[in-house]
């Protein structure tokens, strides 16, 4: 069998201030085309794990192989080249509020642009066309010239998806993409992610809080507790007992329909 698309080896992250151990010797691998859901309590290391992959956070020890390349050893220039094939979607959308939706979408293209072109904001015709196409794909083509902060939460997250689409990514990291959204909007956003996963063949890593969403969209689930990997399996394997083990005894499962 060929090597896995994404491989973690003894990944450890210690935050220097306060000596908090966020990740402890986490090792697992992800095949191409998987929709991997990461669950766990707040502070269990989900965000840290995702941010270590594109090194928004520097890992303390261990290795991460993306398509056979150890990203923990890359120089910052080469890391940028890797990053542009890795899309990312954030809990609070992280859009540039005062800019237009189109500019926000186009900013996904920055990794492919020369320094002076981007400094002057000179996006090519093809890029603009692609941006409109991607906005149409998330149903926002009529909002292209609206300011990003005029949009609702669900719409803003869809702009975030369009921005990630602009990168033409192989891998998509989504850090609690629906935590700030209501249940109905959550499903629409999750469906766009599912579409990217199934139609474009993008490998998706998503941290989620709702187990119902994880079961519905994930092809595989891993669970973190206190920075340690404590579950790795298919969605159907998580029963009541496992749930209590991951979230603690007092936890009750909440469903999002």
């Amino acid at each position, binding site marked *: 069998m060929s090597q896995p698309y994404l491989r973690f080896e003894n990944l450890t992250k210690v935050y220097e201030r306060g000596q908090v151990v966020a990740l402890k010797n986490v090792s697992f691998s992800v095949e191409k085309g998987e929709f991997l859901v990461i669950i766990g309590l707040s502070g269990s290391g989900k965000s840290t794990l995702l941010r270590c992959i594109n090194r928004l956070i520097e890992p303390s020890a261990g290795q991460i192989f993306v398509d056979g390349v150890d990203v923990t050893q890359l120089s910052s220039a080469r890391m940028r080249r890797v990053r542009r094939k890795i899309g990312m979607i954030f809990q609070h959308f992280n859009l*540039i509020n005062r800019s237009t939706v189109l500019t926000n979408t186009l900013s996904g293209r920055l990794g492919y642009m020369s320094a002076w072109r981007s400094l002057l904001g000179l996006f090519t015709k093809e890029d603009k066309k692609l941006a409109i196409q991607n906005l149409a794909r998330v149903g926002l083509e009529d909002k292209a010239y609206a300011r990003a902060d005029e949009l609702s939460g669900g719409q803003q997250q869809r702009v975030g998806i369009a921005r990630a689409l602009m990168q033409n990514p192989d891998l998509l990291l989504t850090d609690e993409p629906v935590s700030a959204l209501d249940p109905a909007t959550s499903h629409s956003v999750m469906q766009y992610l599912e579409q990217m996963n199934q139609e474009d063949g993008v490998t998706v890593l998503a941290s989620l809080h709702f187990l119902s969403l994880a079961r519905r969209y994930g092809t595989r689930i891993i669970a973190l507790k206190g920075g340690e990997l404590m579950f790795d399996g298919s969605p159907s394997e998580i029963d009541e007992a496992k749930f209590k083990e991951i979230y603690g005894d007092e936890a009750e499962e909440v469903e999002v329909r």
Partner: protein
Amino acid sequence: MSAKNSGNRWQYAPSSFRSLWKRFLGFMLDWSIVYYFLHASMYLYLVFWGSQTIAGWNYYKNDAYAAFFNPLRLDSWMWWLVLGGTLLLVVLLRSFGRSLGQRAFGFSLQGVERSFVNAIQRSTRVIVFPISILFSPFQLLTSVIRKRPPGRGLLHDHVSGSSIRTYIHPSGLPKKRIWFTQWGWIAIALLSLTIFLGWVIIDANLGVLINRTDEARRVFMDIATPDFSHFAVPDPVFYQRAYPQMFSIINLMVLTVLMALAATLIGAFFAFPLSFLGARNLMCQNRTGYVVYSFIRGFFNLFRSIETLIWVIVFAVWIGYGNPFAGVMALVIHTIAALGKLYSEQVESIDSGPIEAILATGGSRFQIIRFGVIPQIIPSFLAFTLYRWDINVRMATIIALVGGGGIGDLLFYYRNQGDWSQVGAVVLAMIAVVWTLDYISGRVRERIA
């Protein structure tokens, strides 16, 4: 990683010694307060009751102009008394109740295991501590080599069983009212003494305001009846070497506004790129960035703390006395520093989300600034720049006092001539322009923000 759990006995020493340094600072604060009280009372004694006859002249008596540092002229033996007396008082203050120094640095006197200290222990400490402190180097040395017994602070006084340690407010208990604390009383006394001293030293005399109204009235009346004869027509008598032609009030006013505008634009042009180098969140990622950040911030703070008028003195010598360009250069320097600081504080307060997003798409440092930072800060930068123009116009009207050029030249010329009606005209022109600009920039800033 495992250093924390390895039981290294050196581990606790640095933090303890840092707290010891803070304890020392608190002690010095208390000591300076006590000496300040002593010095102030000696000074007030000299002013109100003291006398010193020199060549038949009685100095000091009811004379506020007695220099504040005159009490320093004590005999050498008295200095020893002052030294010992104040030290003893400081120890007394720090042993009974919580002194201002202890409050400021977060310490209090505590028994073993943070227990209550009774009056006998406190009195014992007052007697013993001045002696035992002499042996403190040995005590510190042994506390490093051997572990201290638990529940005791550094420099623990074994005779009275007390030491000064980090204050932890007992949970559940309400905070003491300021009137029931030693530090509260001292703080209030310090404040009122300083206000009284200031009153005495400045020799504030409200009577003057009433006694001298007759002389002031003539000047006020002249100013209140401004003479606009040279408003648009240059005054042939007014001549400034720095100006190639003669100027009327309105011409000089236009010149002044343009000076401020030029200074603001040039200043903003330089402050804009510098502000990114002076922003902690962008620069303090690595050592080089930190050095650049510190340097730029130091530059901002240093050049901002030197007033524009002082820069005018420098540039008036360099460029020419009364030359408007000297004034512009002085304004530029101060504007760069002031705007740079305001700008970089604005950059520091931005939302880091978009930066993270641009970084994740593979953006470079410049792309992050161009797409993640600049869109967020443009409105407030514009507002600050307008505000600075406002300040610069006000400043430009008076920098002529030390050779910076502008309308102030005319103002000070007429004042020196005693031509108060003309002064009134110039002042009125200034008020009109400053008020108009203030109003416009205020409205525009409202719209932007």
